[in-house]
């Protein structure tokens, strides 16, 4: 069946009468002339007339035909596929649908993704029965599944109907690679690739024909620009973070929000809001220059401890999905630390617990730390109740009663934590006999005191893999190594106890910090002193954060130890879990509250949670099996990759260049949405043939008209 892209032009067929009218007017306009030899004119005319008339008729027909062909060419005729089975060769067509989150862009009547689906439907509907079609998305099967080339139209339409936009950025290289791979498997000579995208530049960076394994220049590439109206303005929240790494109850905290203006105009008085546990708690206005990123700050105070989830948002624009940024935060109540000072001294700097006391609670202006240390002597400790203590620290304690040690052991087993710092009062034989053998309060046997006065020993930074050191970046790990140890108690690694590990070593290879887990609690042993008797660690800046990290680690779990980049949708969440008896599976609730059981893996001796289903932005919850007051389910947030929020376009020419697509054709979105026939090369460029015909006729007409 012949159809027309611009049928309105067919009315121009009436113009074929023009040559006739001109001809008639021309004749009527013959000037009269009195002439004596009219007889000769008559005879001559008769003779020539026959020839002339034929030529005249031919010229008239040519001119009418020229007008008709021109009108038809303008009306853009097409041969529809439905005209018959063999109207053109069977073809294989891959439809690449951009489902990156930028296609959630809302246009007046629908989102760009909805439009993309409709266009995909049109492509399927307008194909022939003998064509094979496939579907692939720009997320390159991270979330979606591609449909390889099939003949079942209904199935493909059903896949299109089910399709949802992702929260991922586009990966066109991967998707194109997959598309060309699928097309390669087709036996049909005719191969087509439809790319339906909003032409946002993100995702095209690494695309080139050379990078596509089975690239085929014979594949005809058709591009549909979903952002035909060229609306690409967008603002996005790109980050939310808390200034403090540890947030305590009743302490004002600073929440920083970053917003990027992807428009070409400055934005004034943009409303930004902070929500915590679903409730708006703060609001402010922001001004952002064109193309710039601005930071705003909220102040908030948590009234109770626990995990909180929240988000910061800005006023919604046409791409609303990136107007929110999620976060989760743990608010801690005060950590009660009981310090048993085994060597008190009235001279403050000689006091064993002097540096420890101020490191745990420095009382810095504007900053309140949540660690609340209580310093007691060993004698006072004997009568101290342990049940409300979060962490117990022995600083150079020579001995304790067995009853108290037993109480300490019970305290640890029930989730308490003990840190033992060495010193001159820590006698290896006593500790081995009592602390280790009787009460299992050491990770290994202690040997002799090593005096390294001549060659100061440092921490071996290559061994600092434990989570407590995660906050120390490479520079700071460098500063960890600045501490020098003149003396330390050598641990016997051959006697390493069950559920024990070395967390840090010295450059001599001897352990510096070692841990032993005892049921729900743990013991940490430090091979050197907590004062400056045996080392200069207390005078180093890392002393305070190291102690805090250790306390937080013991009290809050490993997950919070890492300061990571915000997790993005599609990224894998890996968490080392601090579980004494790890189960085979752990439950994770996604951002929509849906629970999933995830198999736990092992990373050495530690259970490792590897969670891949981060498909939605939001706050996820990891449900721990052995909940205690200290160890409970924790949250983590997942957010969009902000790169996709930048909607600035890639040009069609650039795509053509990248794909070496000599046959790249741009199809109009608006026409396709109306269901107008897709004009493609295989259906024949009739209008070109018609225009060629007009040219040929013009030449013929010129020749005939001037022929003597």
């Amino acid at each position, binding site marked *: 069946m012949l159809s027309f892209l611009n049928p309105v032009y067919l009315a121009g067929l009436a113009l074929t009468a023009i040559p006739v009218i001109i001809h008639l007017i*021309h*004749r009527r*306009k*013959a*000037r*009269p*002339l*009195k*002439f*004596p*030899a*009219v*007889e*000769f*004119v*008559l*005879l*001559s*005319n008769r*003779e*020539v007339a026959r020839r*002339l008339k034929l030529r005249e008729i031919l010229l008239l027909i040519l001119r009418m035909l020229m007008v008709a062909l021109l009108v038809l060419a303008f009306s853009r005729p097409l041969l529809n596929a439905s005209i018959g089975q063999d109207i053109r060769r069977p073809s294989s067509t891959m439809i690449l649908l951009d489902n990156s989150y930028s296609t959630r862009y809302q246009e007046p009547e629908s989102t760009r993704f909805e439009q993309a689906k409709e266009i995909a439907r049109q492509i399927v509907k307008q194909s022939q029965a003998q064509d094979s079609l496939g579907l692939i998305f720009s997320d390159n099967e991270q979330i979606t599944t591609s449909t390889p080339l099939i003949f079942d139209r209904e199935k493909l339409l059903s896949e299109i109907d089910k399709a949802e936009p992702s929260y991922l950025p586009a990966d066109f290289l991967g998707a194109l690679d997959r598309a060309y791979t699928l097309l390669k498997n087709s036996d049909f000579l005719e191969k087509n690739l439809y790319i339906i995208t909003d032409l946002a530049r993100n995702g095209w960076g690494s695309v080139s024909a050379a990078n596509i394994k089975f690239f085929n220049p014979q594949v005809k590439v058709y591009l549909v620009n979903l952002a035909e109206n060229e609306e690409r303005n967008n603002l996005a929240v790109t980050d939310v973070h808390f200034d403090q790494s540890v947030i305590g109850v009743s302490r004002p905290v600073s929440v920083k929000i970053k917003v990027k203006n992807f428009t070409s105009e400055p934005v004034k008085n943009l409303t930004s809001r902070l929500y915590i546990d679903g409730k708006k708690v703060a609001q402010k206005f922001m001004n952002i220059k064109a193309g710039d990123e601005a930071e705003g700050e909220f102040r908030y105070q948590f009234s109770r401890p626990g995990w909180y989830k929240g988000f910061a948002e800005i006023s919604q624009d046409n791409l609303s999905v990136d107007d929110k940024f999620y976060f989760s935060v743990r608010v801690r109540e005060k950590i009660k630390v009981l310090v048993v000072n085994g060597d008190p001294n009235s001279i403050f700097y000689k006091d064993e617990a002097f540096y420890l006391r101020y490191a745990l609670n420095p009382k810095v202006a504007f900053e309140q730390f949540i660690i609340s240390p209580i310093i007691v002597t060993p004698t006072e400790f004997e009568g101290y109740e342990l049940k409300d203590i979060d962490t117990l620290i022995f600083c150079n304690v020579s001995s304790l009663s067995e009853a108290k040690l037993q109480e300490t052991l019970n305290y640890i087993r029930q989730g308490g934590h003990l840190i033992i710092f060495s010193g001159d009062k820590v006698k290896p034989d006593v500790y081995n006999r009592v602390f280790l053998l009787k009460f299992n309060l050491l990770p290994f046997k202690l040997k002799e005191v090593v005096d390294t006065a001549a060659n100061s020993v440092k921490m071996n930074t290559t061994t600092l893999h434990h989570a407590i050191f995660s906050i120390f970046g490479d520079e700071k790990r460098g500063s960890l190594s600045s501490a020098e140890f003149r003396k330390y108690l050598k641990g016997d690694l051959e006697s390493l106890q069950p559920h024990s590990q070395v967390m840090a070593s010295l450059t001599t290879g001897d352990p510096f910090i070692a841990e032993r887990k005892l049921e729900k609690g743990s013991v940490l042993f430090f091979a050197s002193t907590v004062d400056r008797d045996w080392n200069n660690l207390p005078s180093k800046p890392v002393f305070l954060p190291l102690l805090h990290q250790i306390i937080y680690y013991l009290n809050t779990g490993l997950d919070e130890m890492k300061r990571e980049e915000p997790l993005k949708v599609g990224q894998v969440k890996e968490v080392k879990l601090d579980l004494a008896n790890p189960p085979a599976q752990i439950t994770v609730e996604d951002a929509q509250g849906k629970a999933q059981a995830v198999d736990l893996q092992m990373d050495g001796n530690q259970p490792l949670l590897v969670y891949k289903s981060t498909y939605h932005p939001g706050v996820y919850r990891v449900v721990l099996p052995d909940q205690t007051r200290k160890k409970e389910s924790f949250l983590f947030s997942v957010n969009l990759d902000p790169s996709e929020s930048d909607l600035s376009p890639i040009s069609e020419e650039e795509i053509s260049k990248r794909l070496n697509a000599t046959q790249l054709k741009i199809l109009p979105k608006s026409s396709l949405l109306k269901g107008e026939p897709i004009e493609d090369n295989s259906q024949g460029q009739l209008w070109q043939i018609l225009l060629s015909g007009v040219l040929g006729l013009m030449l013929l007409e010129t020749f005939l008209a001037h022929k*003597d």
Partner: protein
Amino acid sequence: MATRPYQSFLDPAVIAKLSHISLKARYIVEGTIAGLHKSPYHGFSVEFSEHREYVEGDEIKHIDWKLYGKSDKYYVKQFEEESNLRGYLLLDSSHSMGYSSEGKMTKLEYGSYIAASLAYLMVKQGDAVGLLTFDEDIADFVPPRSKLSHIKVIHDKLENLKPSRKTNISKALNDLAKNIKRRGLIIVISDLLDDPKRVFGSLKHFRYRKHEVVVFQILDKAELEFPFSDFILFEDMESDLKVMADSKAIREEYLSRIRAFIEEFRDNCRKNRIDYALFDTSVPLDVALATYLLRRNS
């Protein structure tokens, strides 16, 4: 034709050109000696010309006594001076002769000039010349006379000539043939746009009767060259015939036909010893006529 003094037909330039040229009869006419000459017998006349009243001094012998007997008045006879030649100028005055392209001289005017010039020439050399104008019939006839004053008569006729009616050359020739007793010189001045067979038949008739015939075919430059290139509705000047034609397209064919037509006449004239000359009205008359006469005399 606009009224103009008869002397206007005698263009000084033309006269100057023709003054030393004669129009000789080529063939022996009855009772005459060929060649230009003046009659030696001045006053001797065998041809009665006209009457006039007797005035004192006239010779008695010239008194027409018969007329006196009838009228009781004295009249003397005037006699034609005898000439060797009698010329008849047959001028086509049909509508088609009224054509002129480019607003210049019509064929009739051109022909009138020729007729006037020839009449002058012949009278000057002592020949008698008459004028006959015709269209589809004989329109007017002035019998041949050799008196100088006869030129005025001819010129008057020429002056008042208007193209009218259709052409029927053969009828005019046939009618004339019936009325001419003596052999003479017949000069036909026409565009000859008539049936060639009939025209020729009549011309041959004159030759058969031993008249000398000269044919001057006068055609306008446009008729000869057909300089048209657009769509024209050609309207015949002597009938209702109209032909719409693409003049550019038919030009070659027209020229071919008109040339063939002229050639046919020329050929037939030659075969029948009829002198033929084609006159193009765009060619100055003195040049055209002098050329012809010189050629004729050579």
